[in-house]
């Protein structure tokens, strides 16, 4: 019968319409600004810089090795390396970025900077409401705007951050053990009876 196919299709639309009141799979959208879907953990949009502790400038993990700047495919990262060293969160003197800019109007959220960073210093953010009235300066984020605390990182990517924290703690414990060992060796050398000068230089 002509028109049978159309009637069949209309029955299908009716099923979807009424079904949307009872079945969640048939109505997957939400009323956006008022209602929000839960955050998916792996979500990424733009990079940010992680700092430990409370002072963003002091605790920044970035040591300005400039690998991300070189590897960034659209070249949206700009780093100026510091001339001097200053102590990081653990008190070890390190180079730091005198300037660290990311142009998020150029950034394409590929997270290659995160992948190549050997210091876990740069991670992907989830904040997408970034509209500004100034399309030039407003989208060029500087070091302070990029710096976010490790607690924030733990909040947005809990699983990933926990793994990073564990790895870093492990590394630090190893470094501490090494330092302690060196100190002990030094102390032992100092406690040892006086030795000829040539041997002393070896110990140091």
């Amino acid at each position, binding site marked *: 019968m002509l028109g049978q196919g159309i009637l069949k299709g209309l029955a299908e639309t009716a099923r979807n319409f009424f079904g949307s009141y009872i079945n969640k799979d048939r109505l997957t959208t939400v009323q956006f600004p008022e209602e929000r879907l839960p955050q998916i953990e792996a979500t990424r949009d733009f990079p940010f810089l992680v700092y430990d502790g409370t002072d963003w400038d002091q605790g920044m993990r970035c040591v300005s090795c400039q690998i991300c700047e070189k590897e960034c495919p659209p070249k949206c990262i700009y780093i100026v390396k510091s001339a001097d060293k200053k102590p990081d969160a653990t008190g070890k003197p390190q180079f730091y970025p005198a300037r660290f800019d990311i*142009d998020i109007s150029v950034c394409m959220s590929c997270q290659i900077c995160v992948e190549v960073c050997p210091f876990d210093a740069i991670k992907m953010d989830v904040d997408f409401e970034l509209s500004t009235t100034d399309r030039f300066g407003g*989208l*060029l984020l500087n070091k302070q705007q990029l710096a976010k605390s490790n607690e924030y990182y733990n909040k947005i990517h809990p699983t990933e951050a926990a793994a990073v924290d564990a790895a870093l703690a492990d590394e630090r414990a190893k470094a501490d053990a090494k330092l302690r060992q060196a100190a002990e060796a030094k102390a032992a050398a100092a406690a040892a009876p006086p030795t000829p000068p040539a041997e002393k230089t070896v110990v140091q």
Partner: protein
Amino acid sequence: MNLEAIKSEIEANVPGCRLEIIPNTSPSAQHSLLVDSAHAFTVASFLRDGASVRLDYCSNVTGIDWPLKEISTKTKVKKLVDGVEKDVDEIVKTQTGGYLEAVYHLYSMEQRQGPVILRMRTEDRTDRVHLPSLTPLWRSADFQEREAFDLFGIIFDGHPDLRRLLMWEGFVDHPMRRDYVDPDDYEYEPTAHDEVLKRAKEHQAAEGGL
């Protein structure tokens, strides 16, 4: 499927053609067949219709730019210096490149074989850049040869509709050439990279200031 066998089959059937196997040393081992442009059309039509491997499907057509490059290699040569035989370093300078290349990846849908890679080379990169078009044999080369003409400047003789494909009419240069200089008339970009900023500003100054 053996490229040597295909080569000798072509040589037996297309008299006078000059073929050369270009070896590929990478793990992919996809060797290719260099055809002289005078006989390329005959060779290609033989490969499509006559050869035991019927290459009825032309998958990929592209151009490659090989600018003139001088390679100097050091070799140790025994020479008589003041009557004594000595090892002397001799620098041999060889020139490679200086041509544009068109590459065709051919497959046989019938026999599920492939790829057979055909290459053709132009004589130079400036005015003798003509190659025979294979579009009359494989329609799939139509847009791809137009693209190679557009971006590399290879002129395909016998192409039914050789116009620019991606760039606009009236554009002069060929952007995929290695020595192409990109224009500096882009909009001001706020990136922190000084080089881009500098060029944008220079251009705007030349145009009459910001």
